[in-house]
């Protein structure tokens, strides 16, 4: 394999760059403008047991060097994802994919994961216990290590595929949650989901977002993500997928030095639909600049 290749939970990736869930749909909007098979993989839009519209609009707000979203897990539900979206995705993307799953109860997570376990193209289940925009689910599982452990146990019981748990930074100590997931057999950890934030419209004197709060993403959160990856890499021995404000090949290298095996690109895809492609193309020149022969050799190099 080439200089960019990495291995994530036993599955080889041509490069470590993975568009993050919720910023890449099911891939085909981007396949209209470039061949998305250059990507390492992609994590598709967060999927739940039942179809969801999500939160009322406005559900997007701009911030300094970033944005808030309060989409609230809009998705057509796992059955339509399997029957309609994944067949369309298969036509434009031929590599292993990451299935992002969310839920409102432990049973929800297990139900959805069991269904996606039957999908051959799905190589990893990314279990999102960190969505800040839904009530009575999502992040509430990721801010308590007991709840996080229960979700991991239930999901591990229904799938043989690697389970990567996506964690919230909105906690006192992210390493405690990561360790609880590892103890229940999680195969990897992905972090960070968005940071909870808000904006107020000065003309209306009311929150910009109808949901009041939303998740902050974009370059503003990169240092927070890097810190969380670094701390978690020191605390667990399972692989880490790092994300949060990644906008350049240099950001990818920094996250890998902090302990990430692969890196997800989120908000950058929304601002520049070619962002993930450009990051991949810029990786080798950046590696040359910093004297890096193979990317896999630098994972955790700064620990």
């Amino acid at each position, binding site marked *: 394999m080439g200089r960019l290749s990495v291995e994530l939970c036993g599955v080889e990736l041509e490069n470590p760059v993975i568009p993050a869930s919720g910023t890449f*749909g099911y891939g085909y909007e981007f396949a209209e*403008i470039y061949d998305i098979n250059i990507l390492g993989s992609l994590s598709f839009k967060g999927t739940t047991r039942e179809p969801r*519209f999500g939160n009322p609009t406005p559900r997007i707000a*701009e911030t300094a060097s970033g944005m808030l*979203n309060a989409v609230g897990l809009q998705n057509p539900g796992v059955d339509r994802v399997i029957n309609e979206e994944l067949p369309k995705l298969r036509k434009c993307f031929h590599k292993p994919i990451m299935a992002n799953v969310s839920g409102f109860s432990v049973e929800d997570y297990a139900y959805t994961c069991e269904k996606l376990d039957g999908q051959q193209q799905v190589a990893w289940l990314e279990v999102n216990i960190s969505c800040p925009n839904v009530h009575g689910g999502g992040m509430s599982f990721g801010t308590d290590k007991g709840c996080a452990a229960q979700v991991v146990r239930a999901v591990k019981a229904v799938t043989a595929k690697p389970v990567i748990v996506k964690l919230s930074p909105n906690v006192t100590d992210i390493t405690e949650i990561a360790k609880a997931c590892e103890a229940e057999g999680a195969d990897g950890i992905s972090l960070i989901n968005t940071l909870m934030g808000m904006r107020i419209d000065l003309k209306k004197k009311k929150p910009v977002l109808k949901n009041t709060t939303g998740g902050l993403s974009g370059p503003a959160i990169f240092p927070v993500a890097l810190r969380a990856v670094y701390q978690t890499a020191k605390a667990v021995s399972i692989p880490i997928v790092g994300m949060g404000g990644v906008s350049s090949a240099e950001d990818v290298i920094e996250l890998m030095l902090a302990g990430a095996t692969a890196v997800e690109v989120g908000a950058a895809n*929304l601002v*520049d639909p070619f962002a993930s492609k450009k990051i991949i193309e810029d990786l080798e020149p950046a590696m040359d600049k910093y004297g890096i022969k193979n990317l896999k050799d630098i994972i955790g190099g700064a620990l």
Partner: protein
Amino acid sequence: MKKVILNIIENRALTSTVYEMKLSGDLSGITRPGQFVNIQLDGLYLRRPISVCDVCGDTLTLIYKVVGKGTEKMSGMAAGQALDVLTGLGNGYDTSVSGEKVLLLGGGVGVPPLYMLAKRLICEGKSVTAVLGFNTADEVFYEKEFAAAGAAVRVTTADGSRGIKGFVTDAMPENYSYFYTCGPEPMLKAVYKATDTGGQFSFEERMGCGFGACMGCSCKTVTGYKRICKDGPVLEKEEILWED
């Protein structure tokens, strides 16, 4: 969708808050009236979606109102500057269903996308009445341009300082085969009630990406959930579900 660099060739004030910007470059991504472009501006993270007013050869006309940081920044730009733009976004208006006597109803900065539409419809041999609504005489723009394109123009102002006093719905002709509209939501609701033919409405919503990836601008319709940026901004009258 295409990502292109466009050069500003003109940027001038039409009223105290509304500007007309002309840009040149590759506009092949724009295929229908009612589509929009999404503009990257230095120092601002998200792009700014602006509806297409006209495409003539390799010249794009945008009309925008200064309402926030992005449009304020745009208003200060000059000929010669270049912009990174995503073009050809959104579905746009479908002119194939219009019939022969077409009514256009525009309010404020909802007027611009109707200009390219008027030209397209007239080019297709249809007769066009354009009702352009504003708050006061000072805010009126593009009346002459619509007339020059061959449309019968009626201007309304809320305070009666120009044209017919009232709203666009107070100046509708009796007979028309189909209508197209764009404007603030209260106006769209009034148009929905006042019209008795089929028609198409262009909506506005805060967007993340502008090309269908983030689900930031979704709305509920009779035919399911739609993304304003990708499945819209134009919706058919019969599929609209008003919220609140």
